[in-house]
């Protein structure tokens, strides 16, 4: 499929200027995707629906001087089941790649930088003819809404902007994992912890040097003793604490958007995808209290169910089957009403019967249903 992108390039400019793409109006510079769907949204963004092997490809024939242009910037909003994005380019007959972590909030647009300045294969690939973007994990699914793509030369200003972006970006990657991580974020590929330890190690070296040369150094340098080292540690620690305060602020913003003003069911549903929470509520209303049920889903959300289902109890031997099929799951379920069998279809296409002699008790929606085994 071909997507028109509006580039900053004027046809009168040399090809090398062909370095910025936005998707707010049709143009002759075309991006393509190998499989799946891509649409232009009303607010001028490119929405790509990633399926198993989707790659978003730039127009061919870029003829980029990769020695000079060594940063690829992507401004996008993502919500997929992978936590990083890959940039692809070709070096001879080989496809080379680089990954960056992404924030799958699906709500805010973030700027991601592929810093290719240290990549020998990027430098050797000059002139680069085409680049591609895809989720890092093979088979990852989801959407990406791209506002802008640029290829830039690395400058001091850009460097500072990238570093600040890395330092101040929200760390909150996963919907459930609330571990607000100071060490997890980093600058220049180094975790903040590591940078702090390097500075402390430098401080130790200086203090040692000052102590060794105490008699031969000027008096104004002699304050550099172990107490100064402790003060340095405290300053770094405070800086990280302040940085963590920023994480907390991002978290609160995100959680306010997710939960504030919603009734309890709405808050709980915000933790789960699809209509899963509503389905569990439906099962509670439909089945007699204290019934035992067998829960069959294709997602980790299985483990939350026993809490929400109570007083229904989960048992491996129950005759009632609660089946919820998450659309994005790797495997799926199929009910054959004539044979009364429930079949699991694995991601390799294998079919396994997981229940027989079943009848439909209640259908919640296209994804969720309750069956009962008749003995």
């Amino acid at each position, binding site marked *: 499929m071909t997507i028109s992108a509006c580039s900053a390039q004027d046809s009168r400019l040399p090809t090398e200027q062909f370095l910025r793409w936005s998707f707010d109006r049709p143009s002759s510079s075309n991006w393509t995707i190998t499989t799946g769907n891509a649409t232009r949204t009303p607010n001028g963004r490119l929405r790509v629906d990633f399926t198993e092997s989707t790659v978003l490809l730039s127009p061919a024939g870029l003829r980029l001087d990769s020695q000079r242009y060594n940063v690829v910037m992507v401004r996008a909003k993502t919500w997929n089941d992978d936590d990083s994005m890959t940039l692809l380019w070709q070096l001879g007959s080989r496809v080379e790649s680089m990954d960056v972590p992404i924030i799958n909030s699906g709500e805010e647009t973030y700027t991601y930088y592929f810093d290719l300045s240290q990549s020998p294969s990027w430098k050797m690939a000059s002139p680069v003819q085409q680049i591609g973007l895809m989720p890092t994990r093979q088979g990852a699914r989801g959407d990406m809404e791209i506002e802008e793509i640029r290829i830039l030369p690395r400058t001091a200003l850009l460097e500072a902007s990238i570093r600040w972006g890395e330092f101040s970006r929200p760390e909150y990657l996963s919907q459930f994992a609330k*571990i607000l991580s100071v060490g997890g974020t980093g600058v220049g590929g180094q975790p903040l912890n590591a940078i702090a330890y390097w500075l402390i190690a430098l401080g130790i070296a200086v203090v040692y040097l000052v102590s060794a040369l105490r008699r031969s150094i000027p008096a104004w340098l002699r304050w550099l003793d*172990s107490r100064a080292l*402790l003060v340095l540690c405290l300053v770094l620690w405070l800086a990280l604490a302040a940085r963590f305060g920023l994480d907390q602020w991002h978290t609160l913003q995100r*959680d306010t958007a997710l939960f504030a003003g919603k009734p309890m069911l709405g*808050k709980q549903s915000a933790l789960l995808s699809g209509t899963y929470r509503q389905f569990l509520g439906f099962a509670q209303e439909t089945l007699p209290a204290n019934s035992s049920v067998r829960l069959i889903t294709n997602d980790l959300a299985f483990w939350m169910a026993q809490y929400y289902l109570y007083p229904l109890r989960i048992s491996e031997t129950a005759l009632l089957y609660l089946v919820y099929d998450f659309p994005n799951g790797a495997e799926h379920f199929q009910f054959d009403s004539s044979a009364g069998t429930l079949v699991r279809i694995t991601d390799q296409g294998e079919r396994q019967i997981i229940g027989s002699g079943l009848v439909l008790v209640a259908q919640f929606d296209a994804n969720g249903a309750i069956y009962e085994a008749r003995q």
Partner: protein
Amino acid sequence: MTELRLAFALIIPLLAGWTALCLLVPLSGKGLGDQFPAHRTMPVLERFSVGYGLGTGILTTTMLLLGLLGMPLTLPIVSMATAGLILLMGIEAVRRKVRLWPVAEPRRWGAHLRIELVRRRPSAGMVLEILLAVGLLYRLVMVWAEVFLRPVFAWDAFTYWSLYAKVLFVEKQLPSQSYQITATGSLSSHPLHVIFLQDWFGLALDQWNDVLINVPFAAYYTALILIIYFGLRRSQSRLFALLFAFLASSLPLLVTHAGVAQGDLPVAYYATAASIYLGHWVTNRRVGFLVLSLVLAVLAAWTKAIGILVLVIILALLVLWVIRDGQVRAWRRLMRYVIPPVAALAAAFIVLRLASFPLPVSLAQRFAFQPDVIELYVRSLLMGGSWGITWGVFLLVTVICWRSLWSPRIFYAFLFTWTGVIAFLGIYLFLPQYHENMLNGTLLDRNTLTFAPASVYCMGLAIAERLRRSPGR
């Protein structure tokens, strides 16, 4: 109405804790075996912070006893039983002529305030204090705002802590051992304090509220920070106390657990408070502080199985104190206060056993030495996202402030934290089942959370001491 019910849920344990604390560490006058001069006792805010932890312990122990006696765990029964206990403690306080509320002395307070204002001219230190206080307030506001937004979300809460609390709330009695509900944990795998506490909030609110059952954990967080502040304030300047209270409040995993309905933060609270009051005992020799420390350590064991380690370390430090400081003569007197809580704990386990809950930790496990754990453990402490540079600085402070460590208060605080950290390493090194949990990242940071706030407290003591000394010493 919900607000009033929530206030009631918090006030009952606070009252129970306050009254019990007044018996141990009186506002002034004669405490448990000692005369407490006013300057040796506790400020009101610190009393609330310790009282909350003590009171929740009293409340949940009462609930356990009621459950074992076969009584239904309903709001009237639990409230009346706890109120009865508060009354009994109140009568004992009156009998001992222990005051239960500080007497307001406005004239003195006014004079104190005037002196403070005259003394405290604007300075860089004052600006720093204000900044740190604002930072601390920011942290607390963020934590409480989160708590009132977010429903239960964590794995362990869904599969164990909140799940069983919900079961208890619905069934109004102790679930039997045959009760099979969960795929990942059983009721016997941890002590029941946190489960009873969430149940209590459900009972008081008269509904199972997925958001408000997180409130007790934010209260633990707040109380812990205040205990660290007041613990440091006893021997350090306000600037240092604020600085390290702020740093403790900034431990990422601690903040995370302030809104997670699990046992990790409460056990960290009890461990930290137990070590701080052990330090007060060593310095002041007021038996009330010793008993308080032991009771808090017992409550740590009542909160999570790993709390048994806290109790063992506290007892070991007491033995060390007797040997190191040549306090053998004090030993008999000490034992009068050590034996009761230990015996109570042993009795509690026996009762639990009789109630067909197996012991929380089975020692009959296969031993296997796994040296690859060391690297993982060190990497997780130093480079993981849960602690920032806390443990790295702790290591450095131990080396740099070596000479400051020998004052009794600092010595026992450091020994407590280091023993905890090394004990965990030993557990991971030799017990394969923990090793597996460590490799998959489930347990390690949550276990070290038990000792992380205490490490910040230690550093507060040692760094302040070192910075006070002249260069080169």
